[in-house]
């Protein structure tokens, strides 16, 4: 930069001059009362925040307990519902559950005794249930502690009309029926 008007060696002395000039610069006077007021306001706000946090914290334990109770109740309810879970609300063709056909295939719906007859124009709900084997305890030596899954065909009046056992449980059912 020797061929230019500004000599770079001047930079440091000029920076020193600027440094000295800046030292003489004073910030405008500030109202200390306003400053104190700001401080007090801030302290008050902080205290309020701290109190709010404490209050929130004091609610945490009961809230957690309540949530646990609600979850537990939900779990119990879900378990109950699962035990008698309605799988679908469907129109079941009555032709498929004629007594003759039902006796041939275990997985088909079998009409229940003493129940109103099935009608092609009515709609039915299928409700899945789990039945304890003890309900079928007619054969000595049959397993008593288990349960089997079955689908109930329930009419609009709430009365069960037919029952269907799952394929896996068919053998148990046939044993129980004997």
């Amino acid at each position, binding site marked *: 930069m020797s061929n230019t008007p500004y000599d770079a060696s001047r930079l440091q002395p000029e920076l020193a001059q600027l440094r000295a000039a800046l030292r003489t610069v004073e*910030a405008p006077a500030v109202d200390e009362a306003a400053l104190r007021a700001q401080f*007090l306001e801030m302290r008050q706000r902080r205290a309020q925040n701290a109190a709010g946090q404490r209050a929130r914290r004091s609610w945490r334990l009961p809230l957690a307990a309540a949530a646990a109770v609600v979850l537990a109740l939900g779990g119990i309810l879900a378990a109950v519902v699962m035990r008698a879970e309605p799988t679908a609300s469907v129109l079941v063709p009555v032709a498929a559950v004629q007594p003759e056909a039902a006796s041939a295939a275990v997985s088909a719906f079998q009409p229940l005794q003493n129940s109103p007859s099935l009608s092609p124009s009515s709609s039915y709900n299928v409700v899945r249930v789990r039945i304890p084997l003890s309900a079928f305890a007619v054969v000595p030596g049959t397993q008593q502690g288990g349960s089997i899954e079955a689908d109930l065909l329930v009419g609009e009046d709430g009365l069960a009309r037919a029952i269907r056992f799952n394929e896996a449980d068919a053998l148990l059912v046939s044993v129980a029926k004997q």
Partner: protein
Amino acid sequence: MDQTDPGSNDVVDVRLLAEIVGGVEQSFVELYRRRHNDVYRFVFAMAKSRSFAQDVTQEVFLNVLENASRFDSAKGTVRAWLFGCARHVTLDRLRLERRWTDDMPPDLGTPNSDERLLADQRVERLHAAIARLPVEYREALVLFELQELTYAETAAVLDCPIGTVRSRLHRGRVLLATMLDETEQAALDLKPSVAASLQTREVCS
């Protein structure tokens, strides 16, 4: 500000800051009295605007109220920490206003002689050039050259390695010299045309 014993100054600053965290009102006022000029000068050196520097200084001390507990003496002095706060506020505001250089008239004192006037013009030109520097060079130069922070302190304020500070300072000085060179060149080019224009006016009148 008492510059004779920076170590003891910092001990006092740290104590005041701790008391501010504890809610001592007088300590806040005391810290403000001790350090507000430092903050103000740093911001004025960066932005070359008194009103801007005043606003930023106020905001920095409000931030102190909020964030005093975040100060970590292992990372540097309270003064450097305040510069760090001021830097953030300054950059945020400049970004918000999309104003990276300043257009405020300088006000560094009243000249009382031709020599003083010339010196002030040079200082003013230098300050104006600094205010036009890219911000990364500007803040390094202002902290190191004008606020006389060490390399380590400057690096702590800028949150970058010391090597980066050194390279920014070097590039900043080169850029500054180039800008001042261009300013003087323009002044030299302008002089004949100003003289010619004056002569023309005289002839016309």
